[in-house]
């Protein structure tokens, strides 16, 4: 049984090939506003590396933002369902997933790889990568450093606004008042952690929680979230490909 999963994200397109439940090959391509050709390229890649021909593939499942554009896929599934299955493959005790990406934030309750409940942030950038991007810019530090900077703070500045636009101006006024970058960074990180923790509690996540998505690499955020939730978060080895992997596994079953 050979199945392929394609995760057509807005920034990158990922393909994963699964053969008989075991060997996994993956490839990542920039999407560059063209879901179809990025998906084609990623697909070709995994076939070449695995030494398999197109005609021998039993199923192709797509997921991600552009999931409905991939015309060679047999079926499209949502990234929420796909991620749950993908994370489960790496971490079979998983009961919950926190996924903070560039545009959105998802909190998923999982049982045996199946979604049992989930929440996504509404129309708003609060609690997403966008929040960090804008506020890091106001702080004039690269977004990757925000987390480490925060870890160096002893007394985080209070950021009261969840709204990205207001938080940005709050950062500017805190700087004008002479707060250190470390303390402001720590305030920002705490603020996003609080926001996400509220969602996690609403869905009832308590233990065996995995942290995925672009923001998961940020150690400061992870630490703040762990403190806020009072649990330690599990990291999966290849967080970028869990969506495509989950899609492939669904095609496999």
């Amino acid at each position, binding site marked *: 049984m050979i199945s392929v999963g394609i995760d057509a994200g807005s920034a990158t397109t990922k393909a994963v090939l699964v053969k008989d439940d075991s060997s996994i090959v993956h490839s990542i391509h920039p999407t560059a506003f063209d879901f179809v050709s990025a998906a084609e390229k990623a697909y070709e890649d995994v076939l070449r590396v695995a030494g398999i021909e197109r005609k021998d593939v039993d199923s192709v499942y797509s997921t991600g*933002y552009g999931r*409905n554009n991939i*015309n060679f*896929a*047999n*079926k*499209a*599934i*949502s*990234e*929420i*369902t796909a991620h749950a299955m993908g994370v489960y493959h790496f971490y079979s005790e998983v009961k919950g997933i926190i996924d903070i990406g560039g545009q*959105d934030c998802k909190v998923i309750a999982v049982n045996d790889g*199946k*979604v*049992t*409940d*989930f929440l*996504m942030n*509404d*129309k708003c950038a609060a609690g997403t990568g966008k929040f960090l991007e804008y506020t890091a810019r106001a702080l004039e530090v690269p977004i990757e450093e925000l987390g480490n900077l925060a870890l160096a703070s002893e007394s985080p500045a209070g950021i009261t606004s969840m709204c990205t636009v207001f938080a940005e101006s709050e950062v500017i006024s805190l700087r004008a008042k002479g707060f250190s970058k470390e303390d402001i960074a720590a305030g920002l990180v705490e603020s996003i952690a609080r926001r996400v923790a509220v969602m996690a509690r609403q869905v009832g996540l308590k233990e065996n929680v995995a942290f995925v998505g672009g923001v998961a690499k940020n150690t400061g955020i992870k630490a703040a979230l762990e403190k806020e939730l009072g649990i330690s978060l599990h990291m999966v080895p290849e967080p970028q490909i869990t969506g495509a992997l989950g899609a492939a596994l669904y095609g496999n079953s």
Partner: protein
Amino acid sequence: MPMPVGKMHSFKSLENIKNSYIERIHQVSDERKKGKKSVGTFCLFVPDEIIFAAGADRMILCGGKNDTVSIAEQYLPRNICPLVKSSFGSIVNDGCSGIKSCSHFSMVDMIVAENTCDSKKKMYELLDNYVPTYVIDLPQRPDTPEAMRYFLSELEKFRDAMEQLTGNKVTDERLKEEIRSSNETRKLLHKLYELRKRDPSPISGIEVLKILQKQYFLSPDKLKEYLRELINEVESTEPEQVHKPRIMISGCPMPGGNTKVPAIIESKGGAIVAEESCTGTRSFWDMVDENKDHMLALAERYIKIPCSCMSPNERRIDNILELAREFKVDGVVYYTLQFCHGYNIEKYKVQQALKKAGIPMLSIETDYSDSDVEQIGLRVDAFLEMIS
């Protein structure tokens, strides 16, 4: 590729409804030329029976269109519910200056408003500058004898106001006829909903919504005619045998012009089989007792409408659970408009109750714009995958 979506048929009676707008506009305009009064309403708490018994006509003025929201924002704050903004924008714009299917907004002699949620209540005060607006007060703690007495007295005052507007007496005889007529409509709607209990349901949610959105716009006779035709057609249709997850929508009303969320749900492969909403069961579920003093019977029936402006509102929770069981739903989509505090806050109680009953719920809070169609689509996909 999206999930397979079965387009089974198209009901002829629904095609006819498409043309009903113009017909109705002509009808009301002719009647008005002959001296008949027409009133505009916004809410289920205003008894149709009294309006018709006074010899007036009525059309609902709830706005579902996004186009008129920005017009309203010249007068109203941005952060109130889109239904209020859309309605207000349509009315102050006097027939929406050319926006299609909007002319009825300028065809009423009086508005019959009601004190329900804060946004509407305060909007009515402004509306009175454009169209004479009569407000029925509502006791918001509905379960006491005092509340009943007060509501009855408000309905009596309303009856007098209608008599004054039209110059006709609201006789017992006329009230009796109108109550019987409205009950008949309610029975037809029950019959239509009964058919949706079949699995698979022979009619889609979007199709039912099309007729329910016109429930308080059409004349009662025309509505009944359409309903009878539709029921006949649906009864004789063999639905295609694909099982789809059965969804109930619960929450805010969806006035004409607004079908965003049900359209997404059904295009993703869900089947909407019931709506606990004012464009759904809340409008017709309970009958008016025909064997009682008519005004009292009306007061008793109308005060029980489970709207979130009432407190406590346990009967809404009980009703949702009962509907979910009766219609054998696989999941509930809790639909709210942004800034509708009543339904948004009540969501928590509904969610707890559904959780206890083991019924999954997806919450969608939105407005009339199309900016979140993708995001909602993703949630609906994930929800349908979760419950199938």
